């Protein structure tokens, strides 16, 4: 049983053991793994990064709990980036149990905003973000297609009051904000069903810049909209969220997940190569 035969016929439990060890270590030890950023995610980050303080970003949280694992990290990364840049954020949740998750996201983000953090070498002191000044949460209304169209005329049509019941006119940041024309861009995070309405009834009629955050499975189907310029950016799945976190230098849930995935895949590839090397060397010996 020379070295090559042993390489080829290792007991599978060593494979399992090494996989468990690698997954455990990469999950617990918070070291950073570089993430290669692709164009479609970079364009979202660059667009938001170049906005001047006070401009408004519209974040539509349209996903349900089952897509939470992939889309929550995107929501945190984008929102943290906007608040750190002193931008104002309008949040809507057009899916059934969207409001619950939107509120949870805003809560966690406002906590992390309290601390001083340094991103890409720039120090941002912690600040307290207040409802009405820094963000407005409009809540949920049924028939998302009609809501998107209605907001094109005026936000007040589908949302006379915000989620907490205060009329839009008495919200300081909403003064003079009529519809999408006053919004810098719209970032829609959804598992696919509401996305099409944003593309055809939102961007298709009011021509505001639209970026999408989708689950990994749905992501592949929306690349054609990138080529046709209907959307200016696309984040797909955990890998998309990790790329945004990498750009924003704000490692979070997505980069942790990707760390485990990268090393687990490396372990499997290592075993494949080892098996093949053993196979070829073994065959070369037989030929001799």
């Amino acid at each position, binding site marked *: 049983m020379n070295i090559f035969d042993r390489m080829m016929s290792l007991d*599978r439990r060593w494979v399992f053991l090494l996989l468990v060890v690698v997954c455990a270590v990469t999950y617990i030890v918070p070291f950073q793994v570089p993430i290669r950023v692709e164009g479609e995610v970079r364009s979202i980050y660059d667009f938001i990064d170049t906005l001047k303080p006070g401009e408004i970003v519209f974040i539509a949280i349209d996903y349900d709990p089952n897509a939470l694992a992939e889309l929550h990290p995107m929501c945190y990364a984008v929102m943290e980036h906007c608040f750190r840049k002193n931008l104002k954020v309008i949040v809507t949740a057009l899916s059934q149990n969207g409001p619950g998750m939107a509120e949870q996201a805003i809560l966690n983000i406002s906590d992390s905003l309290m601390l001083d953090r340094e991103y890409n070498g720039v120090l941002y002191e912690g600040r307290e973000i207040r409802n009405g000044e820094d963000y407005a949460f409009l809540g949920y209304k049924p028939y998302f297609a*009609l809501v998107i*169209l*209605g907001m094109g*005329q*005026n936000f007040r*049509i589908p949302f*006379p009051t915000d989620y907490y019941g205060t009329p839009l006119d008495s919200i300081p940041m909403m003064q003079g904000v009529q519809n999408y024309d006053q919004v810098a861009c719209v970032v829609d995070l959804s598992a696919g069903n509401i996305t099409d309405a944003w593309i055809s009834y939102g961007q298709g*009629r009011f021509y505001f810049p639209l970026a999408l955050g989708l689950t990994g499975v749905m992501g592949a189907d929306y690349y054609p909209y990138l080529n046709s310029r209907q959307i200016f950016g696309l984040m797909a799945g955990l890998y998309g969220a990790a790329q945004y976190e990498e750009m924003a230098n704000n490692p979070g849930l997505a980069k942790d997940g990707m760390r485990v995935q990268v090393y687990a895949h490396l372990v499997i590839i290592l075993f494949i190569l080892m098996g093949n090397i053993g196979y070829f060397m073994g065959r070369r010996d037989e030929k001799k």
Partner: protein
Amino acid sequence: MKCRSLIAFLLVLCAFTLTGAQEGIGPPDSISADSTRGDSILPPAPVGNLKAWDTDDDHGHSVTLEWEISSDDGAGQNSVLSYEIFRWTPFFMDTLKGIRNSLAQTEAYIAELQAFLPRAKKRLKVHRKGEPGVGFADSVAFYVDTIAASERWLPLHKDRLGQLRRERAQAIDMIPQAHKSYPEQGEWRKVGTALSGQTSYVDAGVKEKVSGDYLADHADYYYRVDAVTADSTIRTSSEIAGPVQSYGQFFNTGRIPVFVAVIVFTFLTVFFVTKARRGADLYVRPLAGIEAVDDAIGRATEMGKPILYVLGLGTAADIGTIASFTILGRVAKRVAEYQTKLIVPCYDPIVMTVAQEIVKSAYLDAGRPDDYYEDIVYFVTQSQFAYVAAVNGTMLRELPATNMYMGVFFAESLILAETGALAGSIQIAGTDQVAQLPFFIVACDYTLIGEELYAASAYLGREPILLGSLKAQDYAKAAVMVLALLGLIAVNLDWTAFTDLFVVAK
């Protein structure tokens, strides 16, 4: 005290349902928008050229509307937000709605009474045997009264229910006649909303007479479409389209391509089967997976180890599982001849029943009826991963020489295949699930890819008529390839008349 109020409440409830109170119905309005705008919007241009006709290729009960968008939609004032579709509805429909409501209330009330009676009787027994003392006397009397009252009311309500049902049936038959009184005794009611930019709307009701939004066939309907601005009070109505009647068609013209395909394929199958019966010799190329079946069974016999046959996670309604039945029949026959042990764990009870029938007759064919015992084919459970856990356990304890996975498999395919490899068995798999083929190809020794699973029964059986049906499949495949090529050329020459032949409607 408390019990008195309970009786009062019951009596009021009965009275209320008997009279069948009417409650008015207001048209559901669109998003309420209190107009807080400065500038006033001018009424938009109306919708043009509104047409309505019965939706074709359906079971009736639906009307399709088409119109040209208002000139103020996307152009001009660009003020049109949505279109609201109105249908002229006779007031008679409200009486029908009233009958439906009181019917629902009576049914609910009967259900409540039927649930209440056994509990009250039980409580009465408890009170009779139960603790003596103050308040005991009248609580027994109370229950006797309410049970007697309820038992008196119940038959009354059942008759009322029957009578209401008859009334409803008559009312439904009168709907077409009620629609003839247009335009008197009725009003325009909103039935739907279309977004700005849309030029058609399907007003579809359901076919069940019992449900509220039933849309009767063969009744004259009239439609009107309003162009609506952001402020819903500012709108313009189009001219009226109608009368139009909805009815069900007897042939779905949208499915003609499928109809032609099925007829041609059936003809091919019958033709080649009869040709095969008359003894035409049909060549069929060798299939690695099938040859492996014979020597795999031989291997199991030499090693004296059992053979495990897994029919997959499909029910007997999945064609993949039915194909697996025929393979099981031929494998069981060989196994019976070689007197090897066969194990068939089943996921679905019907699949288990059919498999038992097949294995028993296979043992009869092989002339070993006594070797067959009931528990060769046994039921495990109907939940995916519990079934996989049990089959994994069986594999590692029985260490079968050969595992066969034939049929419909889902995510658990790799678990079975890897455990089988761990147990050192030769594994032959066959499935039509495209998503699972990569795992079987990687982890099993032989894999029947998609269509090969369906051809396996013909290969194993070697009967000429089965090979005939296989030939029909090949000719159909050839036809599909030729048509695909022609279609590709036609599309690129923009000759869409040819490709439209192949569009399959809903």
